[in-house]
């Protein structure tokens, strides 16, 4: 997917004026925020679980090489294969080679953000293999040729009416008189279209929520059951996952599972949590004959030892998106690439470079709500600030901002000059405000006054007035 992260301000402007999008985004606050709050309130151990979950990931990441090797041994022992891929390109070619060997014409796919990250669908399509997205949201956006706008709910940016239009246009053979004015009907329509595809596919590709080093298992969490049909019915199951998905043991996975669904959708458990371990066993009557795990680095190992290492704890629950006032205002597409919201603002510059994605970590008020809900206690605002530091150090920050800052800094470093300048500014703003008490337009502050007034001060700074009050007692206000 071609990034448009550089166009973030324009993307955001468009999103704010997009009426159906705004209607769809309204569901997020009413839905997920409240559901998460309720789920957390119902589990007194939630905060302790967050701490435990973060500690598990920190430990795993600190010994990632060892755990990856252990994981590989277990997968191999059970007859599966691990593929180590440094880049998106290596991962694409690895998957293509498996598909070619099996003469695959269609592959079914469970929702996978890593597949989006490596641009897998376009690549397979370009090589004559039809990727079939099976998650309902992914199916909808595949028909619309769009990217997912949310890491767990790819079509959250669409209204029901838009989904109906999409099916009318994309589901060939759909009777024109069929009513599509109900979510139930739309779900059944998608179910009927996708059912035969599961049985026809030669290869099924899923992501993974966890890879368990102890057993060589790939854990996949869904509500629809699509990832299960995707991995059980075809000849081969390919798991595509970033190297940071490792956890040591089944018990560790269980601990993190307790915070995952609650943070994501406010459920205590998602409907399906599946531990897939190797290919089908000798006497099994179903299940895939081949089991492949494609381990993707693609810039992740380069985050180790940096101020961005903590983002590798991310379990892609989407809580930071759901609680972000920027994300819920503009939706995911405005971010211009695969990962959106606060976690995307940290991860995207790491994967695409800060020159490409610099807007993302800047487009935050540092309100801190993302960090406060993150089940893995990832300090997202802190890392966004680190990206701003990198951007500033590389002279990539916008010129006007840099110039403004350097003027401000000039005064802020010189107290006497600062006091004089503040006094002059207070007088000037008071004059501008006049009898109104506020200013309608202000030079150099168009971003402020375009949408709101600037309350005018009364004309003197506190320091000036304090000096007047403190006059008789010269000692006051001096240095301690």
């Amino acid at each position, binding site marked *: 997917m071609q990034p448009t992260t550089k166009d973030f301000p324009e993307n955001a402007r468009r999103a704010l004026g997009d009426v159906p999008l705004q209607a769809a985004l309204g569901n997020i606050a009413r839905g997920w925020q409240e559901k998460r709050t309720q789920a957390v309130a119902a589990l007194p151990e939630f905060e302790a679980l967050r701490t435990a979950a973060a500690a598990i990931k920190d430990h795993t990441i600190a010994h990632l090489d060892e755990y990856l090797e252990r994981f590989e041994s277990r997968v191999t022992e059970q007859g599966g294969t691990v593929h180590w891929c440094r880049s998106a390109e290596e991962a694409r070619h690895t998957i293509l080679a498996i598909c070619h060997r099996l003469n695959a014409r269609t592959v079914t796919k469970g929702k996978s953000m890593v597949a989006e990250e490596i641009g897998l669908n376009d690549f397979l399509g370009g090589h004559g293999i039809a990727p079939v997205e099976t998650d309902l949201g992914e199916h909808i956006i595949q028909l619309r040729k769009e990217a997912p706008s949310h890491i767990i709910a790819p079509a959250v940016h669409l209204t029901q009416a838009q989904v109906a239009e999409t099916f009318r246009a994309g589901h060939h053979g759909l009777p024109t008189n069929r009513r599509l004015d109900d979510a139930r009907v739309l779900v059944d329509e998608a179910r009927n279209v996708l059912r035969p595809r599961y049985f026809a596919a030669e290869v099924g590709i899923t992501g993974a929520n966890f890879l368990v080093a102890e057993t060589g298992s790939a854990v996949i969490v869904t509500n629809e059951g699509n990832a299960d049909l995707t991995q059980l019915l075809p000849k081969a199951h390919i798991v595509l996952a970033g190297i940071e998905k490792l956890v040591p043991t089944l018990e560790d996975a269980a601990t993190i599972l307790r915070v995952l669904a609650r943070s994501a959708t406010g459920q205590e458990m998602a409907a399906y949590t599946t531990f897939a371990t190797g290919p089908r066993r000798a006497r099994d009557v179903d299940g895939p004959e081949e089991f492949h795990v494609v381990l993707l680095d693609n810039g992740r190992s380069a985050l180790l030892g940096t101020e961005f290492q903590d983002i590798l704890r991310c379990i892609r629950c989407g809580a930071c998106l759901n609680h972000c006032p920027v994300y819920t205002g*503009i939706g995911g597409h405005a971010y211009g690439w695969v990962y959106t919201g606060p976690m995307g603002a940290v991860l995207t510059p790491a994967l695409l470079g800060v020159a490409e994605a610099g807007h993302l970590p800047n487009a935050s*008020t540092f309100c801190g709500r993302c960090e406060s809900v993150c089940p893995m206690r990832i300090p997202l605002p802190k890392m966004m600030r680190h990206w701003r530091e990198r951007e500033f*150090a590389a002279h990539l920050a916008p010129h006007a901002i840099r110039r403004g800052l350097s003027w401000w800094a000039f005064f802020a470093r010189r107290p006497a000059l600062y006091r004089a300048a503040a006094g002059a500014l207070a007088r000037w703003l*008071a004059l501008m405000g006049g009898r109104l008490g506020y200013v309608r337009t202000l030079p150099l502050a168009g971003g*402020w006054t375009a949408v709101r007034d600037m309350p005018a*001060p009364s004309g003197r700074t506190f320091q000036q007035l304090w000096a007047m009050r403190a006059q008789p007692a010269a000692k006051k206000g001096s240095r301690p």
Partner: protein
Amino acid sequence: MTTPARPRVGLLVTCLVDLFRPEVGFASVKLIEDAGCIVEVPRDQTCCGQPAYNSGDKATAQELARNLIALFEGYDYVAAPSGSCAGMLKVHFPALLADDPLWENRARRLAARSFELVSFLHDVLRVTKVAAAHAGTVTYHDGCSGLRELGIKGQPRALLGAVEGLALKELSAAESCCGFGGLFCVKYPEISNRMVGDKVAAVIDTGAATLLAGDMGCLLNIAGKLSRLGAAVHCRHVAEVLAGMANGPAIGQSAPAAKAPRPARPGS
């Protein structure tokens, strides 16, 4: 640390109070003095450095942090009528200066004694009563830094509860950011506008005559938006009400009588 009988408190005025709302500075002084402290205002303070810190200009932020530490470390306490500036001292200075153990240590010592004004009154000085009255309904906006970095939520409500005649009506989506975010509001004005638009809609929904908050950044943003919409809600810093100094014009209101305000002497 033993607390002396009359602690000396350094007031970090904050640059926005200094420039836009001196009344808040005087209200802060009164509240802290009424609680039995000596208040001093270091003359050479400028800014805590947030604009630089949040823009990635670490060197400038560090320099300003060191200046402020040197200026304030002699006091028993530092108080600031702002969650975000207090958060800067309390949470961010030690992190900002972490590459220099000496300064990090000084930053930590200062952080331990630095407080946002209302939490300082409530948690440290154990103030439970205020000599103030305010007729009418108010609503309260929790600034994000105060709320999430410093855990300030109950303190302003407890003290407002002690104001005679005051009724508090809570905002819906109370924990949502108002969209100020320092330079954010001018770098991404449309997104900021959406956020402040949602916030003022919630404010207007409460039917309260007055909006209170503990941060001038939020207040200028919300007051500016209410003013642009022509909404008749007054905005004030919570300290003005707690100090009984909410009689003058509200933020962004015409102030003919306030051209050269003569602040009442605290305690008079």
